């Protein structure tokens, strides 16, 4: 349904050091799927979505939505798309209902259709209590729900959401998740970006992990995690161990069959992180530790997460990446780019 092919986009130049926001990014979103775009802030997610929504032209590459070339026929693509931007764009002087009616006119909807659709969405997103109040007084969750309603008003075949649940209360987030799943079940293609692992893991049928403006991994969450193999185990023999004891335990663990990659984590009180091939190995570990007269303060075992997928592909965790990117970004310049 959505085809992004070899997209490149570079910002800045004359005054500021150029930033390669997209670097030969290609992506294919199947029709009727809920597709997640996961990556740290600054990875290029928003740039990719803005290009898809015809707000920005790529330096190179192709964009197609339902077979329509977005660069050649932007208006046809705008008809197909609903876009919910990261910065909620509402007019605080208007009421929510007035905003929806304005949106309907911008999509050339008839009066009857407009009233019907507005009523449907008010019910769907439970906005009835406050829709006739001015937007200026809305909470973050109310604004986001109204923004989502505006994006859905014209029954788009493709819904694009940029970080739809950042900073939201739990109730609003649950409502939005539910609506997105429902839309997908009814045949809408949903593409959302997020830097929340859990969100993409819980919602997406497929996902692409983006880093440095390119796709570094793509697939279903289960397949991506399954490809890593093994379970993650965190072991602490005492609450605060020391280096000597940790290395003794590490040697012991490394000798066990089915144990891979034992790492001592100094920052976490010399705890040990390891990968085991199957859960049976953990039982063997417990026995071995008992035989060596070592206590077990804590032993946590988990399936690989998307963060492990990211770690495997880039050699750093998502939160580390966020921190390192934060220093390199020129937010003022980005703001200028997003102002049209």
């Amino acid at each position, binding site marked *: 349904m959505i085809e992004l092919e070899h997209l490149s986009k570079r910002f800045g130049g004359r005054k500021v050091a150029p930033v390669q926001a997209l670097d030969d990014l290609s992506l294919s979103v199947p029709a009727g799927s809920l597709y997640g775009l996961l990556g740290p802030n600054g990875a290029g997610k928003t740039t990719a979505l803005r290009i898809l929504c*015809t707000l920005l032209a790529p330096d190179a590459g192709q964009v197609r939505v339902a077979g329509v070339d977005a660069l050649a026929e932007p*208006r046809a693509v705008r008809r197909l798309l609903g876009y919910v931007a990261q910065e*909620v764009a509402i007019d605080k002087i208007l009421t929510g209902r007035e905003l929806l009616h304005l949106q309907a006119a*911008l999509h*050339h909807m008839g009066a009857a259709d407009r009233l019907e659709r507005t009523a*449907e969405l008010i*019910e769907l997103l439970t906005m009835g209590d406050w829709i006739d109040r001015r937007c200026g007084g809305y909470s973050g969750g109310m604004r986001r729900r109204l923004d989502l309603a505006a994006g859905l008003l014209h029954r788009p*075949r493709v819904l694009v959401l940029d970080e739809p649940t950042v900073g939201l209360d739990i109730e609003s987030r649950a409502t939005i998740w539910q*609506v997105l799943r429902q*839309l997908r079940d009814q045949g809408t293609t949903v593409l959302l970006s997020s830097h929340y692992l859990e969100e993409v893991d819980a919602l997406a049928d497929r996902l692409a992990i983006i880093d440095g403006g390119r796709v570094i991994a793509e697939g279903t969450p289960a397949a991506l995690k399954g490809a890593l193999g093994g379970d993650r185990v965190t072991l602490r023999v005492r609450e605060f161990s020391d280096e000597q004891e940790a290395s003794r335990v590490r040697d012991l663990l490394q000798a066990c069959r089915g144990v891979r990659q034992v790492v001592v984590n100094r920052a976490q009180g010399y705890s040990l992180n390891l990968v085991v091939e199957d859960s049976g190995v953990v039982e063997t570990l417990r026995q071995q530790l008992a035989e060596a007269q070592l206590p077990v303060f804590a032993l946590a075992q988990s399936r690989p997460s998307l963060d492990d997928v990211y770690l495997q592909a880039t050699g750093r965790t998502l939160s580390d990446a966020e921190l390192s990117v934060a220093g390199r970004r020129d937010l003022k310049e980005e703001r200028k780019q997003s102002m049209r």
Partner: protein
Amino acid sequence: MTSASPSLTPLPAASGEPSALAEITQETLALTRRLFVQLARRPSTLVAGVLQPLIWLVLFGALFANAPEGLLPGGISYGRFLGAGVIVFTAFSAALNAGLPVMFDREFGFLNRLLVAPLRSRSSIVFASVLYITSLSLVQSLAIMGTAALLGYGWPGGAGLLLVLVTLLLLVFAVTALSLGLAFALPGHIELIAVIFVANLPLLFASTALAPISFMPPWLGWLAALNPLTFAIEPIRAAYAGSFHLTDVVLVAPYGSLTALTCLAILAGLAAGLFLLIRPMLDRKLT
């Protein structure tokens, strides 16, 4: 809940495109409506916009009340002379500020909402601003003209009123287009306000709003004779002077004499030129 089912056919529009005119009208009226709702809920703009020119008229009109008779061409009083200037300057200021709401829409991301929508023509954004500012100027102008009449400065009459209207429409269209162009070209509202601030009063002083060209040194006379405000002021002043024809000379400039019709033609050319100039900026989205 099932009500949200999105149909798989793109849009009702798929069954035959509705006419461009109908769609542009729908877009323009919806955008204009938004501006009027904002005005109705924040009426201070309107109140200040009507009061300010009235203060101009009363105070400035009184400033030269005791000037020797026959000082001005045609022997009219200064208050009567000033009326046309205040009307034009008021409409000009309002139009020059038209870009501000658009700039704030840019800054708050609201413009993206318009640009992502399948607008038939992005000129609708310009048309909406022009409709809004023209209506606003009309209310302001009627208030000025009413006050001027009460102060004994006269009333333009039926045909004159029409001329006032046409002149204002052309000027407002041109200046609104310019202001919207600035709103797209400049980086932020601080810069836009700075440009408005710098352009506003000098354009007033370098026009025939406050004094006729014959009062000015040659260099200023030249400036005033090239100033678009002058081309709007003189036809309106002629309308105030009583019976007139479009082919009457209304402006004696250093480079020649201009009729009311010529003045209007220059304004129309300016409006068309500026509109064509800013159109590509609206479509810049894919650059």
